[in-house]
């Protein structure tokens, strides 16, 4: 490990395709005895260099805890965290080349915007001229040049967010940790900042580990997503993988809307299976990795991957409700076997058919639409 003369912060040259962070079998337990809580239950994950990696999960699933362990504010009960192949356990937070954008921003209220941004570089002992140049560069990057001399209490929430980002990016960390940075912003500003964050990640080439409980945010921004629940990582993959090929019920349910159907497996070949649904219809479905066949299975079908038709279809039922959403319409159908099924239809001009409550319909399930769950 090369040690930087200033503060002992380690400097690692960037090599594409490497793992920036490797989390190996990390457990984090809070409390003792009866009151013990496993905030992280044996988590292992690799985060690649230059990646926009998202930890997605409901509140309390351990996202912040994992970030805190990487930043060094807390220590794993078990397991290890590697930064470019080096165990970072012995490094205190102020020696880890990792910076955090806090959920509350945590800007220093007694300093100006520029002083906040320069703080990290100053602590690293960089010469004044270099700090000033870098601060100017960062102010430009987050488009805050005009407000450099303001106190952080004299700028808006969105501007504080930008300052927090600039402050964390200024020392050019190896990894940037972002703990639900957009959750305090209103809808429009959040959309703007999502684009802004993607741009910043692209321009700086820094590895981002982004935490959110908003599935839409995760899908639109990430290179890869890890879906977490109750201290465990359930699935890691690209937004497409996670959305189209959820491996577990929780993942399918948490991300987007989904139809669950019970099925019996008839035959398996090359990662696909022929299954018979309760209604007797036979369809083809994709198997998840590491699937252990035991005859029964749950099949998930996204509402927009199925189509309602007046006649025919793979399965059939009666329309219970039709909900108009502007860009699309949701048709809620009670299947003949008693389960419910939702179909989402685009509202393009002249396209699609309209349905009415009580109408009998068929549902066509696309070739690649059905996915079998692991559990």
């Amino acid at each position, binding site marked *: 490990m090369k040690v930087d003369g200033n*503060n002992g*912060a380690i400097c690692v040259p960037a090599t594409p395709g490497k793992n920036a962070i490797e989390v190996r079998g990390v457990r984090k337990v809070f409390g003792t005895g009866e009151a013990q809580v496993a905030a992280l239950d044996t988590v292992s994950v690799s985060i690649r260099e230059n990646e926009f990696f998202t930890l997605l999960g409901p509140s309390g699933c351990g996202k912040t805890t994992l970030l805190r362990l990487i*930043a*060094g*504010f807390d220590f794993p009960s078990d397991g290890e965290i590697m930064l470019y192949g080096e165990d970072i356990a012995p490094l*205190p*937070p*102020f*020696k880890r080349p*990792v*910076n*955090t954008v*806090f959920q*509350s921003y*945590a*800007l*220093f*209220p*007694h300093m100006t915007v520029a002083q906040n941004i320069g*703080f*990290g570089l100053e*602590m*690293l002992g960089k010469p004044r001229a270099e700090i000033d140049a870098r601060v100017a560069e960062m102010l430009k990057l987050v488009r805050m040049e005009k407000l450099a001399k303001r106190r952080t*209490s004299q700028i808006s929430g969105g501007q504080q967010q930008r300052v927090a980002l600039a*402050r*964390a990016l200024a*020392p050019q960390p190896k990894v940037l940790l972002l703990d639900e940075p957009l959750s305090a912003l209103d809808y429009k500003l959040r959309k703007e900042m999502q684009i802004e964050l993607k741009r910043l990640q692209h321009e700086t080439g820094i590895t981002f580990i982004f935490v959110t409980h908003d599935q839409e945010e995760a899908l639109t921004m990430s290179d890869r997503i890890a879906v977490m629940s109750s201290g465990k990582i359930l699935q890691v993959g690209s937004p497409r993988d996670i959305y189209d090929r959820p491996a577990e019920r929780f993942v399918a349910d948490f991300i987007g809307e989904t139809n669950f159907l019970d099925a019996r497996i008839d035959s398996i070949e090359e990662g696909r299976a022929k299954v018979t649904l309760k209604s007797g219809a036979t369809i083809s479905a994709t198997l998840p990795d590491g699937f252990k066949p035991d005859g029964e299975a749950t099949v998930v079908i996204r509402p927009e991957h199925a189509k309602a038709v007046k006649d025919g279809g793979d399965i059939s039922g009666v329309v219970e409700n039709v909900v108009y959403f502007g860009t699309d319409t949701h048709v809620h159908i009670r299947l003949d076997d008693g389960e419910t099924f939702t179909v989402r239809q685009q509202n393009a001009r002249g396209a699609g058919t309209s349905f009415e409550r009580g109408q009998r319909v068929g549902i066509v399930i696309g070739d690649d639409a059905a996915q079998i769950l692991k559990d």
Partner: protein
Amino acid sequence: MAKRFSIRQQTGFTAIAAACFVLLYVPIAVLVAYAFNESTSVSEWGGFSLRWFAAAWNNDQVIDASLRSLKIASSAAVIATIAATMAALATTRTRAYRGLTFKYAFINQPLMVPEIVTGVALLIFFAQIKIATGYSGLGYLIAAHTAFCIPFAYLPIRARLENMDLTLERAAADLYATPWKAFRRVTLPLLWPGIIAGLMLAFVISLDDVVITEFVKSGGQDTLPTYMLGQIRRGITPEVNAISTVFLLLSVVIVTLFFFLSRKRD
């Protein structure tokens, strides 16, 4: 029709409140008024004059006692504030543990032990040290005042620390600040209003003390309050009123500053 019950409006409340205000402020108002009396009486008005302020100003004993009071109060306040700052950091920047409440009580002990007890205890304790070392300077008074000023300095500092966002210190550490630098650059600047408030409160408390000072002081070590007490025993002139008025003004100014500083938020 019955009147709606209100906890704020009950028979006698106004009268009791008025009586309290009269007791609090009328004597002080009278005292201040007679500081400007022309005659030598503290109860008979003989016209307006500043002669007693001038008399106090020209009284070497008053000046001597005042300077001693200021010397003791400033030394004790500074030392007590430093100790209180460290105590506040130690008791807030920690996880709650068994015995922490006991520690709070320990630090605030001077608020609970009767002053007269502390006075007697210190008198006996310091007497032994005086015999052993031969030293009889102002050190004893400064030490005694420091001891009872600590809780007064501690409380506003602790309040400030408890209200401080801990993520700020974490952010400093995240941005490569060593613990000492994080303290110097983030914690301390944000703590200043609390420290100043603690300092001023300790200063006023020390300036005002009579009981413990009476017990601990050696001959010729009168502070302003003990000097005034001695004067009153010998018969009162409006000079005491004049000194009291100046004293009052000083306290009011400091306490007002304290009030504004302790209310100041980021």
